[in-house]
């Protein structure tokens, strides 16, 4: 009797073991297939982004120049040199100034414009399309054209200022004005991105929230201050960080509009890497500057992540 019942149990075990191995091999096949499908993307990024980045970190410890035909290990010499290099220090200063001022202006403007574009008015569809145009234009077109727009005597900006005030500010020669010109050009081009994102955020806030607030007497500016702003805050912080990193990395506007001038007053980190790497052909030193740029991005990213977590936990 017991033997009779043993047999089917045994058979069942055999069957389930067989099923399990088949399932296991199916699972293994699925995982193998998955990694095969992912492989092109990973290999592509490893070869063209991650490996070159690691090699840049390596190069930053070398004196490497194709002109002087050097490839000598110098330890921290490049970094030491950077700490005493007035051009690099100015560049870091302006990069931070640019990132903070430009992002602050973009956030404020985008909050306003997104409120505007969220209203109902005639030509709203057209106005929203117009909003996208600066986003769609190439940064190098805008940077190059901005040199014409900010021309002292015949530029568009000074024409308007001159008609109003009779003055013609010397935009690209005066340090503060040149910095402002770079920021304004950048704000003109990039605010559209944040506007579109904030508009998406606004459309995600249910109307009932505003209606409920209206009953409690919160209307107009108060509902913006107490409802819209807090609800958008995680978006403002996360996108603010994203845009700020973009500012720290930016290149084209400064390359075309000011060439970093006057002096190095409007030089950005990427532009400095370009100058050292591809004009002076100092690969080692340029790599060290690029690593400093990387650390700036890293710090902003980490600070932003902390801020975001706080904003999430509050809302």
């Amino acid at each position, binding site marked *: 009797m017991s033997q009779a019942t043993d047999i089917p149990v045994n058979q069942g075990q055999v069957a389930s073991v067989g099923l399990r191995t088949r399932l296991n091999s199916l699972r293994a096949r699925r995982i193998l297939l998955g990694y095969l499908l992912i492989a092109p993307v990973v290999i592509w990024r490893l070869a063209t982004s991650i490996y070159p980045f690691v090699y840049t970190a390596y190069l930053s410890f070398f004196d490497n120049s194709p002109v002087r035909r050097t490839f000598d290990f110098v330890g921290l010499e490049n970094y030491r040199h950077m700490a005493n290099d007035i051009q690099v220090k100015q560049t870091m200063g302006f990069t931070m100034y640019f990132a903070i001022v430009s992002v602050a202006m973009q956030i404020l403007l985008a909050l306003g414009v997104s409120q505007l574009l969220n209203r109902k008015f005639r030509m709203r569809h057209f106005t929203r399309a117009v909003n996208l145009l600066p986003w769609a234009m190439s940064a190098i*077109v805008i940077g190059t054209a901005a040199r014409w727009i900010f021309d002292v005597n015949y530029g568009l900006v000074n*024409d308007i200022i001159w008609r109003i005030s009779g003055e013609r500010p010397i935009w690209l020669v005066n340090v503060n004005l040149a910095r402002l010109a770079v920021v304004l050009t950048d704000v003109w081009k990039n605010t559209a991105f944040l506007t579109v994102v904030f508009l998406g955020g606004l459309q995600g806030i249910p109307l009932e929230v505003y209606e409920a607030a209206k009953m409690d007497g919160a209307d107009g500016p108060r509902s913006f201050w107490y409802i819209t702003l807090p609800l958008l805050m995680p978006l403002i912080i996360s996108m603010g960080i994203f845009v700020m990193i973009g500012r720290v990395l930016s290149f084209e506007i400064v390359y*075309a509009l000011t060439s970093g001038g006057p002096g190095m007053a409007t030089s950005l980190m990427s532009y400095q890497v370009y100058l050292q*790497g591809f004009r002076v052909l100092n690969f080692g030193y340029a790599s060290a500057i690029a690593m400093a740029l990387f650390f700036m991005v890293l710090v902003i990213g980490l600070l932003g992540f902390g801020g975001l977590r706080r904003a999430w936990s509050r809302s």
Partner: protein
Amino acid sequence: MATSTATAPLSSNRLRKALRAAPLYLLVFVFLVVVLLPIYYIFLTAFIPGDKLFTQPLTYIPKAITFERWGQIFHSLPIGRYMLNTLLLSTVSTLLALLVSFLAAYAIARLDLPGANLILVGLLASSMLPGAATVIPLFKMFQNLHLFNTLWGLFLLYVSGLLPITTWVLVSFIRQVPVEIEDAAKVDGASTASLLWNVVLPVVQPGLATMFLIGFITCWNEFFIPLIFARGPSAKVITMALGEAQTIGSSTQYYQQWGNMSAVAILTTVPVFILTLVFQRQIVEGITSGVFK
């Protein structure tokens, strides 16, 4: 008397409504001027005759226009070749990036792989690596591999630049598709290839279309990569002609510089403007899909 009292509240109501809407329309008007006036003026510069370009005050509605800049830039620069290169690079790079990242996105979203999320986050983090911090080793690599000055080399980098965002967005698109659709196909014995092609692809097709637009515009506008890696006309792109256009023609005529620059700016900008205006909705979706999904 009776009629006037009947109509008076109506018209004053209307007036009040119009007055209340006035600040809104004023703001809209200011916004449109700030965005459109510079674009209009840059485009106009290509058509204003040289002696009318440098006037105080400026003229915004020209009395005479000229087309000499077009002849000049097409005569002195291989503009046709630049445009063709740009079109080819933008189209092929974006299609290739979408294909490659579609496969990866499917695997990440559906195949329950160990470490899939880590790969996805790593991919996105790698897109934050500064271009300036990869460009010198790439420069050396390209010289060794004879990719320098070639469209192949640019393809490689353009695709690479798009992969993190396209993968990221496509993963979110595929995750929104109900698994049941795929399960039904699996029961019918569909192979993975036919599953991907016949079931998943059609469902995420709108997502692919929006990402194509964003990718195409991104590649079209690229300048830094060709500046470093394309030094000869065989691989140069249209954004590089902006600087070159300013150095051609008789150098004694300062105004040539801006007129020619402006003509190239029009060539560079009009294609993306057309795309943006025609596909406005898809582009907004594309911009926000990386943020909200």
